[in-house]
């Protein structure tokens, strides 16, 4: 009997649900039954309610089973040996699942499919085609990325190509590519999934960026809360050096590029690009005033491309299939696809990559299947701790940078956190201020002091102390923070606060004066 290939995800979401123990058990079972089994620790496909989701390779494609718990392993293993046979947890072919069929996977094309630590597997699934095309016409890379319409996936939505052009046009002996993998927003995990499931796509994207702008060194700044991502990235970089895709002659070309992982130390504000650069330099992660832009004076004062994981990981497919191909997905000025993360109180949470334009309601009700508590959805926070809370009334908003901005919200890094009707929105507003107070870098006053005053003011409102007066103070404070803060931490904390107040005034003890003011 030939070796049977079994996939047990090494993705942190699967591991946190018991995947490591399951992998061990399968190894033991195979040894006991004297069956030759190869266990591959793949990434996650993104159907997280099915994790740990195991797969077996059959002549008819891969067959999945999930969610597999410790007690199910033996039965699932038997079914797998029977060429992907019947079992109550049998999912069938993952790609045929409705949750997958509705997606357009460009950035996440290989995630969950390949062995993340294998450069050969990456190349067998279309990896490094983008880089080879880039090497054929290096002078065209920046134009191609610009024409694709790719915008910064970290949240700010700044056109990636323009950032790159600025760095390319700036003369310097040394330039850097920095990947912002400080994915601190609650409700987001796409960066983590890519790093754990398809790390070479990030390596390839960063290498293309290096060739485009003339940088030979890259850093990936990963938050310390992501130990699994750190491990996989380090292994992939080592494999990349051995395989000649990193080093003095990238893929045999005249270009040099190398990468290093740096680990954060638990400061949320380091997700802000200039704070991240200070942190990389070994300083407190304090925000820098702009200008100068990082593109002119970034890491160690050198011209630096700093991009989010998803932005960089999307570059290889743009180079491979062309700007036109990518640009044809999406709506308005939001081109291409967005890996959306469905999180919180949902039946079907996970990673859903789709073209811009899908509505919030479709995502929450149809794809996500509503709350797992069985209660009605009351509020949805989009874009992390600095994103606005949306009520059902705004569920027709299409997922698009501008459409969300028009509703006083943001798509941020594409995380959606769903709350049922038991949530107290005044408490959520208080939390937003409290989080800002704890995480503020302290450089600017509106953020440092405003957030603390904000907590106190919400406390007074919740206690019913001079409520109308304090609501006015809170609104005024939010304005000061929004327009007076140096970065998005202080500047965007008003989004969750004001959206909670605007859409759910009853949770703040609605007063006639507040409603009259609208």
């Amino acid at each position, binding site marked *: 009997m030939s070796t049977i290939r079994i996939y047990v995800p090494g993705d942190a*979401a699967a591991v946190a*649900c018991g995947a490591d123990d399951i992998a061990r058990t399968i190894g033991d079972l195979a040894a006991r039954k004297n069956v030759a089994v190869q266990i591959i620790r793949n990434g996650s496909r993104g159907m*997280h309610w099915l994790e740990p989701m195991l797969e077996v390779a059959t002549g008819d494609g891969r067959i999945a089973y999930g969610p597999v718990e410790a007690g199910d392993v033996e039965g699932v293993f038997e079914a797998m040996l029977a060429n992907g046979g019947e079992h109550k947890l049998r999912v069938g072919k993952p790609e045929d699942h409705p949750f997958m069929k509705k997606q357009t996977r460009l950035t996440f094309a290989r995630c969950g499919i390949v062995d993340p630590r294998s450069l050969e597997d990456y190349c067998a699934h279309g990896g490094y085609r983008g880089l080879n095309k880039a090497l054929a016409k290096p002078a065209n890379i920046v134009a191609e990325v610009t024409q694709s319409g790719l915008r910064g996936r970290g949240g700010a939505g700044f056109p990636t190509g323009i950032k790159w052009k600025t760095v390319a046009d700036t003369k310097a002996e040394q330039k850097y590519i920095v990947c912002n993998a400080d994915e601190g927003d609650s409700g987001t995990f796409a960066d983590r999934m890519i790093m754990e499931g398809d790390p070479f796509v990030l390596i390839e994207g960063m290498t293309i960026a290096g060739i485009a702008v003339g940088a030979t060194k890259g850093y990936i700044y990963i938050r310390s809360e992501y130990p699994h991502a750190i491990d996989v990235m380090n292994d992939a970089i080592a494999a990349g050096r051995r395989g000649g895709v990193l080093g003095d002659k990238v893929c045999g070309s005249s270009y040099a590029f190398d990468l290093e992982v740096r680990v954060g130390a*638990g*400061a949320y504000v380091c997700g802000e690009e200039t704070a991240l650069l200070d942190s990389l330099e070994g*300083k407190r992660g304090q925000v820098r005033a702009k200008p100068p832009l990082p593109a002119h004076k970034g890491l160690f004062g050198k011209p630096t491309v700093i991009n989010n994981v998803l932005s960089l990981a999307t570059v290889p497919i743009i180079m491979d299939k062309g700007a036109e191909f990518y640009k044809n997905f999406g709506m308005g000025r939001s081109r291409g696809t967005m890996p959306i993360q469905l*999180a919180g109180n949902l039946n079907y949470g996970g990673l859903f990559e789709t073209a811009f334009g899908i509505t919030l309601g479709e995502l929450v009700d149809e794809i996500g299947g509503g709350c797992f508590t069985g209660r009605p959805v009351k509020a949805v926070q989009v874009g992390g701790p600095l994103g606005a809370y949306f009520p059902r009334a705004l569920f027709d908003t299409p997922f698009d940078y501008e459409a969300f901005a028009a509703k006083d919200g943001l798509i941020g890094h594409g995380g959606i956190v769903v709350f049922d009707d038991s949530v107290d929105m005044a408490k959520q507003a208080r939390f937003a201020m409290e989080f800002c107070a704890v*995480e503020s870098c302290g450089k600017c006053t509106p953020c440092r002091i405003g957030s603390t005053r904000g907590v106190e003011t919400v406390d007074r409102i919740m206690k019913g102390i001079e409520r109308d007066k304090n609501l006015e103070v809170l609104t005024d404070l939010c304005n000061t923070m929004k327009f007076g803060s140096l970065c998005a931490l202080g500047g965007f904390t008003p989004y969750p606060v004001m959206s909670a107040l605007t859409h759910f005034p009853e949770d703040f003890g609605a007063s006639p004066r507040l409603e009259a003011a609208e």
Partner: protein
Amino acid sequence: MTASSGWDANLAAEIIGRHKDTEGPLLPILHSLQEAFGYIPEPAEPMVADALNISRAEVHGVVTFYHDYRQAPAGRHVLKLCQAEACQACGSDALAARAQEKLGVKLGETSADGRVTLEPVYCLGLCSVSPSAMIDGRIVARLDANKLDALIAETAR
């Protein structure tokens, strides 16, 4: 996980020397010191300052800025409960209250017997399988009262 051990100036010097010549060496040095000692021992700060030619205040400023760096050893076990929004949406508040009551410590504190440190964490990136926790570096998702009690029992060992 990290084991706290006694202060060893030679070990600290070796760690500092290992990273000193990399670009932006301070965070890698502090990470390694904490891995070796379980916290950043105060006598290490002037040594780091000296090696990097920066002031002691700058080193101390960095140590105190980042949540990860400890200035005193943690308990033998470290239980981190995610308290960010996605976990809040799935009942993390009640779980934190339960843990605080059962362990007799508040979030951010170490028990008097040095057995366990209970800490909040703001997002482990397990938001689709929340609530989540981390115990001695191991991640646990879909936390409920039963699973939490099992983790608390682990800290008794």
